[in-house]
């Protein structure tokens, strides 16, 4: 090659390399690497609010990459009761229902106290093509509804705690909780646990299989909720004599589970 064209060619190559470098930002790196870099910025002290937009951009730019879901998960974690969380939930619902990565985000979705979160889990359960996502959505939807039941029971027992509930959960979700009918809620819980038992019984969870969890919860909902006839108890008393709970029908009974240790 003649020297002048060589120089021109080299110059052209160097310039185009620099141009390409600019085009993909400060990286020719993968979405995962870009995600990590944003996380590092946060850990270095940047305010989550400032970084949120960049995480959203990442999710927009690489919708098929798991890093997009990670990015939205980050927003859910760091900006939990902020408007950005709602936006993240909406994005997940709109663009990422098919993602296998959604399984890992289900716990955080459940922790975001909102109707959108509940809807998203139901959508994932119905629409995801991945069994693992369906199972996690089912589990965390069930846990979310269990938590609602606890709050509703608390509100019935102590109506004065309503203010604290509104404060903790925000007005919209707080009011929603206060309006829930305990019987309907139990029906919903029953349906979700029945689905769990039917479709995900063998999936492992922290304390056993989802089948075991479902059976335990279904028993509780069906037989140990307020308004249900208590299951029979029979066994020996401390002196070895057999007796049954049903012997006490016709009386008001206080059952006390107690012991020393």
């Amino acid at each position: 090659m003649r020297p002048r064209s060589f120089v021109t060619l080299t110059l052209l190559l160097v310039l185009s390399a620099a141009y390409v470098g600019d085009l993909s930002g400060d990286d020719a790196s993968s979405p995962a690497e870009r995600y990590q870099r944003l996380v590092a910025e946060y850990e270095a002290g940047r305010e989550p609010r400032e970084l949120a937009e960049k995480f959203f951009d990442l999710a927009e730019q690489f919708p098929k990459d798991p890093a997009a879901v990670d990015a939205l998960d980050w927003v859910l974690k760091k900006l939990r009761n902020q408007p950005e969380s709602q936006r993240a939930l909406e994005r997940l619902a709109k663009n990422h229902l098919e993602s296998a990565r959604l399984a890992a985000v289900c716990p955080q979705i459940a922790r975001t106290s909102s109707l959108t979160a509940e809807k998203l889990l139901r959508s994932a359960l119905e629409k995801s093509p991945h069994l693992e996502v369906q199972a996690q959505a089912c589990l965390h939807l069930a846990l979310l509804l269990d938590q609602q039941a606890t709050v509703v029971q608390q509100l019935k027992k102590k109506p004065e705690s309503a203010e604290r509930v509104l404060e903790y959960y925000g007005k919209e979700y707080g009011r929603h909780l206060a309006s829930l009918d305990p019987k309907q809620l139990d029906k919903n819980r029953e349906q979700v646990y029945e689905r769990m038992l039917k479709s995900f019984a063998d999936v492992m969870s922290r304390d056993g299989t989802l089948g075991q969890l479902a059976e335990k919860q279904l028993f509780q909902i069906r037989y140990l909720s307020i308004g249900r006839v208590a299951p029979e108890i029979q066994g020996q008393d401390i002196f070895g004599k057999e007796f049954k709970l049903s012997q006490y029908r016709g009386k008001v009974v206080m059952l006390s589970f107690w012991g020393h240790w």
Partner: protein
Amino acid sequence: MKQLADQPFALLGINSDSDREELKKTLQEEQITWRSWWDQGSSNGPIQTRWNVTLRPTIFILDGHGVIRYKDVTNEALDDAIATLLKELAGQPSQKASADKNTGADKK
């Protein structure tokens, strides 16, 4: 609880203590006169497992039909709950309790 002696009320326990003989001594020492099931000597006994009890004390209040009406009430709320259910029982015509699940009996 003394004023409940003449009322159709029963306090029943489910006990998780491991040593039955020690427990008999405890009953005497603490003058516990109400009856308890001994749930096989551990907190994983069959009754506690079935009722999914992990924290103690856990309390359930049942009405005259065996329906669970209150859970984990204490102090005044407990007294009120028992009083309410006793009033309810007194106001009803005598009937054999049938195992009906969803009667209107769960209205306060």
